[in-house]
């Protein structure tokens, strides 16, 4: 099993590294969007797949990271590097405050609260003209010239996303990550052995928010602009769809989901009337017929093949 995932990961890294040589600029940008989406979905899955909390407000932190970078560069006049680094503690604090309240709830109350807080920040971003420029958003936020081309920015994104993925992988395998999983599987029992549920859910919320914020910051300078739509509830639906599609029970599931999502986004066109409709249909379909997502399905196949070959070997 280890070998399987190692080979798959190596192959993915080679393909991602080599990608800019083989394809047109548009496709590099598409790959860039995929990477940002993958990080966004991975951050969502810290809460959903690992802690058992379904957030409908993940775009809140994507948006906070995106706006933090934009405002630090535009209003405070900071350099890209400094603004990028500073956007992390800003999202951490925001996630800390919002998470303090949300982590008091579980199940649907949690979903409701995240949706509500998301709407609150969306209203702030779209109405507070003096700071956020309201509905117009903030334009012309360029990355530094060193990252000026599509290829260079792609490699920057790849490096950041790879680093974040490694960090998330490490977190998932740490005692902290295992504690979250035990809370997901059995809150009562976890509490009985002395785990402070609220504290761990809160910290999971902050971790999740921080990585969503990094994804948002990456998006701002990719897109050269940020608008309140990055905070809208339909944006929060994106990591939900990606994760369900790829499989929430696998670490790499959200990455697979982000790849499929970006592919369809390209063919269906994000700005067609039916984008939200399609996302809804995918959610309904996957929840009803494919609860483990594509990744879960493949995983089952791999395991079935392994069991079959073992049986075969044993018979001999």
């Amino acid at each position, binding site marked *: 099993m280890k070998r399987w995932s190692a080979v798959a990961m190596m192959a993915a890294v080679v393909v991602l590294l080599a990608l800019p040589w083989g394809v047109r600029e548009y496709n590099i940008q598409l790959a860039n969007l995929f990477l940002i989406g993958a990080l966004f979905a991975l951050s969502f899955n810290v809460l*959903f797949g690992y802690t*058992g909390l*379904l957030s*409908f407000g993940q775009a809140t932190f994507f948006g906070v990271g995106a706006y933090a970078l934009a405002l630090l560069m535009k209003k405070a006049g900071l350099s890209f590097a400094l603004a990028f680094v500073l956007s992390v503690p800003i999202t951490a604090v925001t996630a800390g405050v919002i998470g303090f*309240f949300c982590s*008091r*709830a579980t*199940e*649907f*109350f949690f*979903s*409701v*609260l995240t*949706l*509500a*807080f998301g*709407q*609150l920040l969306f*209203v*702030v971003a779209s*109405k507070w003209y003096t700071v956020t420029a309201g509905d117009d958003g903030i334009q012309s936020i360029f990355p530094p010239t060193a990252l000026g081309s599509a290829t260079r920015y792609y490699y920057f994104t790849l490096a950041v996303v790879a680093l974040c993925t490694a960090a998330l992988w490490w977190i998932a395998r740490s005692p902290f990550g295992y504690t979250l999983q035990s809370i997901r599987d059995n809150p009562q029992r976890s509490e009985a052995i002395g785990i402070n549920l609220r504290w761990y859910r809160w910290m999971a919320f902050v971790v999740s928010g921080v990585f969503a914020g990094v994804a948002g910051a990456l998006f701002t300078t990719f897109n050269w602009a940020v608008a309140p739509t990055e905070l809208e*509830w*339909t944006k929060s*639906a994106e990591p*939900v769809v990606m994760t*369900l599609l790829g499989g929430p029970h696998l670490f790499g599931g959200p990455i697979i989901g982000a790849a499929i999502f970006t592919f369809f986004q390209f063919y269906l066109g994000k700005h067609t*009337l*039916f*984008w*939200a*409709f399609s*996302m*809804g*249909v*995918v*959610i*309904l379909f996957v*929840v*009803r017929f494919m*609860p483990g997502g594509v990744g879960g399905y493949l995983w089952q196949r791999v395991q079935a093949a392994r069991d079959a070959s073992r049986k075969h070997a044993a018979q001999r």
Partner: protein
Amino acid sequence: MTLSGFVNQFVSGLTFGMVLFLLALGLVLIFGVMRVVNFAHGSLYMVGAFTGYFVWEWLKGMTGSFWVSVIVAGLLVAALGLVLEYMLRPLYAREHSDQILFTYGCVLIIGDLVKWLWGGQYHSVPRPPGFQGRIELGGVVLPTYYLLVIGVGVATGLGLWLLLARTKLGKIIRAAVADREMVGILGIRLPRLFAGVFGIGAFLAGAAGMLAAPLGSIGSGMDVEIIVAVFAVVIVGGMGSFLGAALASLIIGEVYSFGILVLPAAAQVFMFLVMVVVLVVRPQGLIGAPER
């Protein structure tokens, strides 16, 4: 602020509160019996407003066209609710998150369908004949339509209470809230009961959509706006309690109404504040069993 201005604002908050109450009733009813939180309840409200508007336009000029359109909107949305409930059936045995995701997916689908069918522009419905004027009550001039909506809300609340407290169906529903498996074992057909309850909730949402149309405007996007307010109501009131829903509807309605005076662009902020305070002080809601 003058006293009459205050009363005016209070009555307008009461009116909005009644609309929230009609929605919260359905949400609490569905949650109580099926343990499903219907995220699409706001979408049903929006569909009610749009279908009501088009029925009303189609009947334009007929006497009572507004009232017919309120009822027709309610019935059409009830039919839609039955379809949703039918699709939801395979998921009752699953985890809560699957059911939540299902209704969330419906929000996305219905939102886009409404835009596609009826476009993104706003519509408005005038107040129905007989309720277009104002009435003076003790020195305060109030729009009669507000009083009508409040009356309808109170009547619906009382009607539902009578249904639950005095009829056999009400007994069955209350028993199902307590223990639906047992109700099933005793020979009540649960699928029919679930469909009925979902239908009633959807009817209330659809009718409320059209009833509220003359108070503001109809447009895509009203689904999420209203559902967040209704969720604030059920969090403040406690998810399992009709009395809590009634009380919280009034509180949220008033907070919104007076909030507009302070922060016209973002009156929702105050709604959130109330919700957050309740969540910290009394997580189970004002009226609700603890540890939920």
